[in-house]
């Protein structure tokens, strides 16, 4: 068996890497080009996007969420006096498993290919307020803002759950 033979010169053959192109992607300037779409994969599970027109506020996503990350927020009342509810995603809990997208009956909740969401701590806030500030900032009501770059979406494919 070839394995197990040793040679002082074998490791030195790695030096030919010096003349190869590095595998590094210069991140802010370059992006990944291995998928049919550039950047992340076409069905990436990124931040949520929600078609508020289509969303009926059925709270199916809230029930399936394994980590209690979705909360139904009342944003107004309809003509019958019933409350209109829309989901608010807490990214402090969300694990991007996309079960909520799978169960959405109207297919309004989707996931976009955007993934960067960061919060800088404000220097002037006191220590206690800062905790609440960050927590608050991580609760977002998904809307159509990221809708032009849809990632994970079970609309076309067969529904997975339910």
């Amino acid at each position, binding site marked *: 068996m070839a394995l197990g033979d040793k040679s002082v010169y074998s490791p030195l053959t790695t030096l030919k890497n010096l003349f190869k192109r590095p595998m*590094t*992607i210069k*991140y802010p300037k370059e992006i990944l080009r291995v998928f049919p779409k550039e950047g992340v994969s076409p069905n990436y599970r990124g931040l949520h996007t929600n078609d508020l027109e289509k969303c009926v506020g059925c709270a199916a996503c809230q029930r399936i969420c394994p980590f209690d990350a979705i909360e139904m927020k009342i944003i107004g009342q309809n003509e019958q006096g019933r409350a209109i509810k829309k989901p608010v995603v807490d990214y*402090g*809990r969300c694990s991007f498993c996309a079960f909520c997208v799978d169960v959405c009956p109207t297919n309004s909740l989707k996931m976009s290919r955007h*993934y960067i969401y960061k*919060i*800088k701590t404000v*220097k002037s806030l006191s220590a206690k307020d800062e905790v609440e500030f960050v927590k608050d900032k991580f609760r977002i009501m998904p809307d159509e803002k990221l809708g032009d770059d849809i990632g994970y979406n079970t609309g076309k494919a067969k529904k997975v759950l339910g």
Partner: protein
Amino acid sequence: MTSRWDVERFGIGPMATPRQADVLLVTGYVSLKTLKRIIRTYEQMPEPKWVLAFGSCTVNGGIYWDSYNTITNLAEYIPVDITVSGCMPRPEAVMDALQTLMKMIQSGEAGAYKKYKENYEYYKANQDRVLRKTYPILGEKLIQNEEAATSIE
């Protein structure tokens, strides 16, 4: 980090000990036993120092929000400069956060370590509150017995 997402391009590299570190990366959930180590590591780092919390778990408990052994919010125990969402965050997101942190340091925006000194009581109180849970159940009695045993000798 890997060859593809080479962070050494920005002069960022892992250091072997907290004494040589500038930035503490808390990558995900923090159990009570780890919290003790994180606080110790953080206090060992020389100033100026910064904390980058990433993953959802450091903000509101993440997927372990109902676990009996993890803390839900890192910022209650040590001051955090920048928080990134994701579970796990992509390498790009981490690099983006590191670069933002670099910009913040340049503009003087990042100075959470000063908060630790100013609000030392607040942080200590929070830390004590959860770390009390990690004391051995037979705790004080056992220690007293041992002390008694040694004094007899």
